[in-house]
């Protein structure tokens, strides 16, 4: 049973579709990077996977069970606004979240909090910095001993040290328990080391879905004379052009023609290429 399957899922807010006709499958044990421009529908998608946003069309299922209206017991979710009880202390919060779960490990929470420098267990959650709050929220998510971890921008308000700590904790979780992770982030440099699967969404639709190595291998960046683009074969994703030179991102490219230089893109240039293409389309 796959941790997450989306079947033609869509969500409309008033007149605007945030997510449209998305279908994909997340294989077990993968660490998935959910990327896309601001407003692409990443948060809506994760919210629907967590069962707190109701799809307008289609549906998602976690481990074979539809997610609408209910969070699957094996799924943990970290929302973008972190939703913690600010009037409780960290210790009380741990107790509170624990009492709301059938399967729960306070030890795991303490272990995670222990690995993070500078979390005072008796401090009120509301007095913590945004970064520390995010880390506390991740500890709560791991306390549920999930098999699928959904993280919405887990790194956005962490400083570099905390990002490193947090990624290490998540990766250890993957190593120890084989947890599947789906995380959205704008920090491509941080994602490159930790993710092995990419889901690129834009304008509410899935644009790229697959194993990162395979996806990268399927694409080429070609640099060559602007006058000679006709000799290039393959699906053009996006291009930047100067008077003399063209830099093209291609999918399923034919062998590099003479006079052109071809390289495999890295994750960052791949994503940037797709984002650029989407911006061009929108103009």
């Amino acid at each position: 049973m796959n941790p997450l399957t989306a079947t033609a899922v869509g969500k409309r807010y008033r007149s605007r579709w945030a997510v449209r006709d998305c279908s994909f499958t997340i294989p077990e044990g993968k660490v998935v990077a959910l990327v896309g421009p601001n407003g692409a529908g990443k948060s809506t998608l994760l919210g629907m996977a967590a069962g707190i946003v109701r799809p307008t069309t289609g549906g998602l299922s976690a481990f074979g069970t539809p997610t609408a209206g209910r969070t699957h017991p094996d799924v943990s979710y970290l929302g973008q606004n972190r939703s913690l009880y600010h009037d409780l202390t960290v210790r009380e919060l741990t107790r509170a979240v624990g009492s709301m779960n059938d399967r729960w490990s306070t030890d795991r929470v303490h272990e995670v909090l222990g690995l993070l420098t500078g979390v005072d267990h008796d401090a009120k959650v509301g007095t913590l910095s945004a970064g520390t709050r995010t880390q506390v929220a991740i500890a709560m998510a791991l306390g549920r001993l999930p098999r699928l971890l959904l993280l919405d921008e887990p790194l956005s308000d962490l400083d570099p040290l905390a990002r490193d700590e947090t990624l290490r904790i998540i990766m250890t979780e993957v190593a120890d328990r084989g947890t599947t992770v789906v995380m959205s982030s704008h920090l491509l440099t941080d994602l490159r080391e930790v993710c092995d699967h990419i889901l690129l969404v834009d304008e509410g639709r899935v644009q790229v879905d697959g194993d990162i190595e395979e996806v990268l291998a399927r694409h080429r960046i070609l640099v060559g004379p602007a006058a000679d683009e006709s000799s290039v074969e393959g699906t053009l994703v996006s291009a930047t052009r100067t008077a003399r030179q063209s830099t093209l991102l291609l999918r399923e490219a034919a062998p590099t023609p003479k006079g052109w230089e071809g390289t495999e893109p890295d994750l960052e240039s791949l994503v940037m290429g797709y984002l650029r293409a989407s911006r061009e389309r929108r103009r």
Partner: protein
Amino acid sequence: MIWVSWRRQRPQLITLLAMLVVGAGVVVLLRSSMLDSITSSGLTECVTRTTQECSTNKSAGDFRAEWSTRLQLGQAAIIFLPVLIGLFIGAPLFARELEQGTHVLAFTQSVSRTRWMLSKLVVALVPALVVLIALQYLVWWWLTTAGVMGPRVNGSFQVFNFGIEHVSPVAYTLFAFAVGAFVGVVTRRTLVAMIVTLGAFTVLRFALFDVVTRVMTTQREVVTSGLSPTASRDASLVISQGYLDAAGQPIAPDKVGAAVQACKATWTPEGQQEYVACLAKSDLGRRYADFIPESQAWQAHLVDASIYGALAVLLLVGTGWALRRQS
């Protein structure tokens, strides 16, 4: 889960407890001071029955002047407590969570939404009701000490007395609380939920003001014209009164008005015989009063409470439904 709700709602619960302690203290002090005043002025008799002397006695007048406002304030506290509970406990209960997004934390744990809702409801509602009932009892205890020298003299059906007795305050509280909770879930805004609760509660209390009189079976008292029915003098709730024709049917008010107008001329301050005879001639020989005796006030309370209670249950079911839909 109960612990979570308790911990999160602790400030409100502490406020409630403080209200109870302060309220109880005030009532006990006031009551004992009032009791002193009654005994020192030798008014003990007047508490149990109304006599000529009690209504003219100067010290009785002084007593009323000194205490009636305080006693009415005590009543007002119990009248307003339900809507205050609805405003400050019911309305923010879910609205604040939805506003701040903290509901997501609970919704993404393994506890079901219904259980989460119920635990929050129980923790918020039960202490509120306990405090309400306790304060209601205390105020009642104080009012009965004043007996017929206090507001109780107007009987159980008097609006303020009715509103603070028996199960009515509990039913009003349930209703106000449920409106607050429901509107809070639907609008996701605390302030909106509070305003709507205040409006809905006030409107409904006025709208349903006489519904009891229509629902309950009434008794009819018939007297000959010239006398007035006892029901309109004692504490019974008179629903309608007027004149009966020969067939025993109530006569339409405009017809009565015309006849009375016609007989007015025969009326003299010295004797009413001619006036009464005139009325009899115009087929207004008997007067009637439909009423609910004070002894049946408890039935009226039950009818009242069941209306508000049923509305409250509907609203709470709606709240549960809306929360499950909420996404």
